[in-house]
């Protein structure tokens, strides 16, 4: 079955003026806070 791909509009990057290493650090921090922390909370619930 051929999936018909809808053409997608490229989304603007978040915080485009921030240098990439800083963006990665911020991203990892956010994921740690918003992804890892709830997972730990679920484990110790």
């Amino acid at each position, binding site marked *: 079955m051929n999936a018909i791909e809808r053409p997608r509009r490229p989304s603007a*990057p978040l915080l485009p003026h921030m240098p990439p290493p800083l963006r990665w650090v911020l991203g990892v921090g956010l994921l740690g806070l918003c992804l890892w922390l709830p997972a730990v909370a679920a484990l110790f619930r």
Partner: protein
Amino acid sequence: MATEPWRQARDAWKAQQRRWQTGGGAPGEAGSSNLPLWGPKPGGARRFGWRVWFLPLFLWPLFLDVPISILRGHVFGLLGAGLGIGFAFLAASRMARGLAGDAERGSRMLGLAAGFTAGFGAGFHPLMAVALGFGAYAGARLITDDLAEAEPPPAPEPAREPPASLAGPAAQLARIREAAPRLAETPRLLSAAAAMGSVLDDITERPERAPEARRFLAVHLDGLSRIVDRLEAGAVPPATLPDLLDTLTRSAERLRVDLRQQETEALDIQVKVLSDRLRQEGL
């Protein structure tokens, strides 16, 4: 001994590694030494690798949570852990596909994973779960945005063919050049053909100039073509023919100069406008 098979295999492997490092390897392979540390890599290959597949690893506590929830009989805990793990791996696989927009969609899925984990798994307040979902989405976007920007290079521009309206004049010119060596007044015919060829090249490169040169194409080139036809048919060239050919050459050269002059004037105007603008902005 240099002829041992394992040594040959090792040398071949090292040569392949050197090719990859100098960017001469197979398309899609990462050269390492001379590539920028970040940003789009040349060659159009996207590096959706470890950066994408490490994202679900943030949820490693859920792998412990699943058996614990099963043993304790926590339905919502199991639901949250299952949805979190599932959406996180869906997100990673979507991002790893690497098509346009996949980084964005994968980030949304990771946000959903965070929301389900926080809401069902950890039992947070729904608003808190939504906020954490948006946070995880933003974090994933920050990590993968520059991957998504690495678009494949545009396809090489096909060689420019003369437009259909110029195909006829080009053929006429080719025929004149081909016939001229056999006719009288060969040097003048060739120089006129060369001058007209230059104009035709200019028009081919900049088709927007074609209307201005339409009269030239319709009258001068066509006339020269007819003269060549008559000469080929055995006509005796009149005494005024050399002068006419010189005039045709000069007019073609002047037309070319005029066309360039228009470009120069347009550039002058552009420079003046930009200079005025910069002066108004105090620069």
